[in-house]
């Protein structure tokens, strides 16, 4: 692990250990690392996690299945609707529920908007870490437009809590589709604008090309997924290889780069934003009419109109709120392609109305393991660039 040290005999030189974090403007949250330096060169970096450990998995064992949805959204607060999608898909698989077409398309819209949302914030903060402050302010403008869209769905700007087991909570509001259409119309031009700032910028290329090299076999050994493995040459996207929620009906490409460095990850994420916009445009055209939640009395919440008019629906709703739905015993793992990689939810059920065990496979937690591998031998300033290229969200890392 330690390379040959250049310690000179005539000067007193030793390895310097620097503490980075937990309160640091560039660590994207409460992340602490101890960096061992020989001059400016990094010898080893040891991350210390747990500063945002909130006991998510233990809390889920004490809540009913429908009460866990807001908890999952707060795990990865950048792309909140992706998280609840992974969780809802797992429970629906265990219940054997088929989600209606309209709800599937709406879920895809929310997932892709979350992906754009997350990648925009990544772009802004990554640029800020490298030293380019302009992308940060530009992307915050875009994010406000997306937050307006989220607000129209279910009221929350950041964490709308819109998805439910079996579908979504309510139908799209008046004017949502028009607003989404105008967003998708001008978003491509905006991505071009962001690219003019960084893609051919000599300073940016100098700082990121060749930095943070992660070969494909190391990436697979370390369990890395998402844009990081696509930047190392493997065209692996769970939306294409194991489609869920109707993704097989959409036509989109998987951006792949062979550079294995920070610059490639930047290119992959920018292209992913364009592909997400493409999916959104198709989703607007494909949106069918129909119910927005499956009808399984006793397991799935009935829709609001039925609760107000039909007696059985009122009783079912009451029983579900008080007792929760009982999921058959067994275990299930369902993963989706979140903006960070393979986001999976593993639920073990004992037949009751709370999960017996819920394991959240967080991509940022696994991807962060590659930090030490990528940082050895680089300069200290590159550590910040590499850390931001992994795109971590501490709430997901620590759960």
């Amino acid at each position, binding site marked *: 692990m330690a390379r040959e040290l250049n310690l000179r005999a005539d000067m007193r030189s030793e390895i310097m250990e620097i503490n980075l974090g937990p309160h640091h403007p560039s660590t994207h949250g409460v992340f602490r690392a101890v960096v061992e330096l020989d001059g400016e060169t990094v010898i080893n970096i040891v991350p210390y*996690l747990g500063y945002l450990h909130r006991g998510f998995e*233990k809390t889920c064992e004490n809540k009913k299945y429908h009460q866990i949805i807001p908890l999952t959204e707060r795990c990865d607060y950048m792309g909140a609707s992706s998280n609840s999608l992974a969780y809802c898909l797992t429970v629906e698989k265990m219940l054997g529920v088929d989600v209606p077409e309209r709800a599937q398309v709406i879920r895809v819209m929310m997932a892709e908007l979350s992906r754009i949302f997350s990648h925009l914030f990544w772009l802004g903060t990554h640029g800020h870490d490298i030293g380019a402050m302009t992308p940060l302010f530009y992307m915050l403008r875009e994010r406000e437009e997306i937050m307006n869209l989220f607000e129209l769905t279910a009221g929350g700007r950041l964490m709308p809590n819109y998805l439910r087991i079996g579908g979504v909570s309510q139908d799209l509001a008046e004017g949502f589709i028009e607003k989404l259409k105008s967003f998708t119309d001008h978003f491509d031009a905006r991505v071009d604008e962001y690219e003019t700032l960084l893609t051919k910028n000599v300073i940016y290329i100098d700082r990121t090309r060749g930095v943070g090299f992660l070969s494909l076999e190391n990436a697979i*050994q370390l*369990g890395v997924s998402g844009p990081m493995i696509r930047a190392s040459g493997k065209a692996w996207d769970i939306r294409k290889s194991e489609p869920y929620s109707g993704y097989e009906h959409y036509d989109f490409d998987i951006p792949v780069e062979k550079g294995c460095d920070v610059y490639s990850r930047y290119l992959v994420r920018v292209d992913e934003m364009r592909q997400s916009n493409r999916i959104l445009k198709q989703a607007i055209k494909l949106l069918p009419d129909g119910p927005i939640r499956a009808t399984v009395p006793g397991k799935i919440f009935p829709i609001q109109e039925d609760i107000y008019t039909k007696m059985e629906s009122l009783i079912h709703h009451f029983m579900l709120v008080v007792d929760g739905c009982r999921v058959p015993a067994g275990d299930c793992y369902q993963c989706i392609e979140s903006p960070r990689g393979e986001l999976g939810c593993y639920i073990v059920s004992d037949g009751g109305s709370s999960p017996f065990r819920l394991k959240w496979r967080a991509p940022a937690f696994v991807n962060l*393991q590659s930090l030490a591998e990528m940082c050895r031998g680089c300069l200290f300033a590159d550590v910040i660039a590499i850390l931001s290229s992994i795109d971590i969200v501490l709430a997901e890392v620590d759960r």
Partner: protein
Amino acid sequence: MNQDRIREKLTEKFGSDILRFDSSFDGISVGVPPEKVLDVCHYLRDESELKFDFLSFVAGIDHYPVQPRFEVVYQLYSVKNVQRMRLKAKIEDRDGNPPSIQSVVEIWRTADWHERETAEMFGIKFLNHPDPRKLLLPDEWQAHPLRKDFPLEGTEEDTPDLPS
């Protein structure tokens, strides 16, 4: 490469008396005794037709008060074949003998942090782990929060606000 083929190959190599095929909602789930985990994992990764080279996660489950109490779950994925499977090992919690199992870090390097987290949350010891320190919890805590007999809100002695 489908589930029956995996079942066939595993039974051929290890014999059906040590393997336990469970039903699950999403494909194949194999139970093995904890002593055999390392051999089975080597086979699953290295065998040319199976090639499970990607470990999604390592998780622990506490079945208190049923014995064997703990279960370690390995979720595997084959990048080449686009196939997922699950491997489980039940560990007993005997008095005076902390539950332990071989670490699979030498097979999949990503197991490092997953096993550290499972070890501190459940109290399972992973033998031959290169770095068995605590990961998410404060270093002074001795408790194992995800065990079923640990209260959700913690206790003043085990999980204090400030280290004393």
